[in-house]
């Protein structure tokens, strides 16, 4: 049994739960069919097995080092990412017009998840580059796209996100990095950026930083934040590499997990100017970043599911092989011990992992599928409806897997007992790797603010223009309670108790199935 992928599960989601086959018949995806998607997933599995899986423990044990101002990472990492890039995985989800393969988002998510499960800290370099390139594609000028996009899609140049600073992480309004305008229209960046994954390394021939900074004299708070592109080495008009851009590596962060992903403190304009170009319009930096962030949050949720999957499959394998104890009705001490998977409590711990991991995969997969439906939608109203649904689901798709699949990793360690607590088995690494997911790309509390404060608008429920009212209208009109849920409820009542709780649905459960969850909050808010 594979330790990092469940192909039957992926196919179940793509073709039986979602309807990828119908999606593939849309003109947008005409270059793909079930066979080509299957070949792509096979290729991901083979590459991950050959290049990613074997060095996961190595990269964890030998974290990147800071040597004479540069980052040293195990040489195998570069080769593995090279193989991944040469197979075309960086370009998979991009439009054909941009040099991509235009594969459906849901299939891209599943393929990237295979690499993530095999070796999360290595897959991060590709994930960040793709998110970065997506932002460049959406908001960059013609010149920026021409200079920077093709080598990123080819996986020759990587791209990190420079948002946080030592004093400002969750509260980006407080960033202090300055972008001073220069006479030729470019900018000079001054300041420091913290927690920059993939911020400096020799794994690619150049690094294309996306940097949030403030132009002096602009409005205070988020309205004064703009987005800039600053390469590690300057790029000439013909695409050739120029001088070092004075982005100095000030130090590395030594992390609990995801250790193969180098994490840096960077100083801009150290010993010379860091020259940057503006992305889009001034003052819109955060809005552009949120465009990327929605995709990144889905990716983080899926990565959490994949860490959970790694722990689940490892502990499942162990539970089938490990002989220990006898069943309660067997009083014969001379009888052979049974595999621990026979014990009810071990089955409980495996089931808890299964529901967390496969539930999380279904949720992130569904969101990616909605992105595809949005891309092929032929009217604005439909796109807006899907957008609203995605807006509500995105913070959940980031948070639920990060919380529940981390808990799954705890149970994987528990099944292995003392062995699980050693570094001889990967389950403790999956736990450490996964522990970052409730923190980065918006901590759990930030996602809660997004869901309840911004998306549900619970404090403004009385305002008829608020998203809360829109949500209520949508849920009454059935968008949040799509056909499958209604069908499921009907079939649940008809059939055996497989899918039915032991008593009638509670108000909370009913809400989760798509009825207006807002009602109970808004009617009580007056009693405060």
């Amino acid at each position, binding site marked *: 049994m594979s330790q990092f992928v469940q192909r*039957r599960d992926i196919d*179940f989601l793509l073709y*039986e*739960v979602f309807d990828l086959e119908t999606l593939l018949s849309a003109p947008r995806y005409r270059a793909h069919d079930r066979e080509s998607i299957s070949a792509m997933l096979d290729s991901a599995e083979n590459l991950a097995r050959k290049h990613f899986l074997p060095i996961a423990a190595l990269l964890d044990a030998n974290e990147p080092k800071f040597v004479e101002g540069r980052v040293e990472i195990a040489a195998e990492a570069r080769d593995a990412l090279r193989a991944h890039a040469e197979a075309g995985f960086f370009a998979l989800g991009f439009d054909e017009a941009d040099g991509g393969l235009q594969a459906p988002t849901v299939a891209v998510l599943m393929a990237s998840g295979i690499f993530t499960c095999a070796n999360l800290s290595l897959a991060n370099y590709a994930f960040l580059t793709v998110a970065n390139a997506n932002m460049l594609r959406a908001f960059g000028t013609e010149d920026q796209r021409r200079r920077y996009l093709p080598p990123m899609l080819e996986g020759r140049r990587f791209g990190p996100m420079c948002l946080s600073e030592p004093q400002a992480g969750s509260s980006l309004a407080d960033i202090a990095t300055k972008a001073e305008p220069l006479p030729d229209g470019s900018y000079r960046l001054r300041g420091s950026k913290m927690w920059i994954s993939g911020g400096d390394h020799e794994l690619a021939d150049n690094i294309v930083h996306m940097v949030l900074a403030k132009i002096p004299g602009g409005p205070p708070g988020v309205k004064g934040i703009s987005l800039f592109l600053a390469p590690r080495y300057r790029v000439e008009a013909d695409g050739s590499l120029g001088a070092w851009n004075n982005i100095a590596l000030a130090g590395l962060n030594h992390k609990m997990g995801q250790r193969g992903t180098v994490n840096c403190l960077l100083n801009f304009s150290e010993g010379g100017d860091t020259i940057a170009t503006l992305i889009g319009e001034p003052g819109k930096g955060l809005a552009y970043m949120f465009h990327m962030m929605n995709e990144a949050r889905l990716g983080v949720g899926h990565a959490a599911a994949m860490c959970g999957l790694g722990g689940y499959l490892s502990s499942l394998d162990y539970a089938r092989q490990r002989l220990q104890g006898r069943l309660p009705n067997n009083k014969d001490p001379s009888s052979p011990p049974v595999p621990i998977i026979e014990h009810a409590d071990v089955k*409980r711990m495996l*089931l*808890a992992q*299964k*529901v967390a991991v*496969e*539930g999380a995969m*279904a*949720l992130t997969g*569904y969101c990616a599928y909605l992105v595809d439906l949005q891309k092929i939608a032929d009217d604005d109203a439909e796109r807006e409806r899907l957008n609203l649904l995605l807006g509500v689901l995105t913070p959940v798709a980031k948070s639920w897997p990060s919380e529940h699949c981390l808990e799954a990793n705890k149970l994987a360690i528990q099944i292995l007992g003392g062995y699980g607590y050693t570094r001889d088995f990967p389950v403790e690494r999956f736990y450490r790797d996964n522990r970052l997911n409730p923190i980065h790309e918006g901590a759990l509390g930030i996602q809660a603010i997004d869901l309840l404060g911004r998306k549900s608008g619970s404090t403004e429920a009385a305002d008829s223009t608020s998203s809360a009212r829109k949500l209520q209208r949508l849920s009454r009109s059935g968008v949040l309670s799509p056909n*499958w*849920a209604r*069908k*499921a*409820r009907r*079939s*649940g009542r008809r*059939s055996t*108790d*497989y*899918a*039915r*709780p*032991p008593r009638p649905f*509670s*108000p*909370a*459960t009913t*809400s*989760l*199935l798509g009825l207006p969850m807002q009602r*109970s*909050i808004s009617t*009580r*808010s007056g*009693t*405060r």
Partner: protein
Amino acid sequence: MWLWQATVATKALRAGAEGEERSFYAGKLAACRYFFRYELPKIDAAFALVSSLDDVCLSFEPSGF
């Protein structure tokens, strides 16, 4: 998500899935049952707390730690 997966699995079992496929779908159904019995009820407690608009965290004085 689990209800959705269970609905698909129920249909596949009714259509006569056999062998490994039968085990796969039966596993999905049992997992759904687990989710509804073990996990979902926790929501009721959490939701009741949210609905009550309890202010113990909000009003707690930092000097009390």
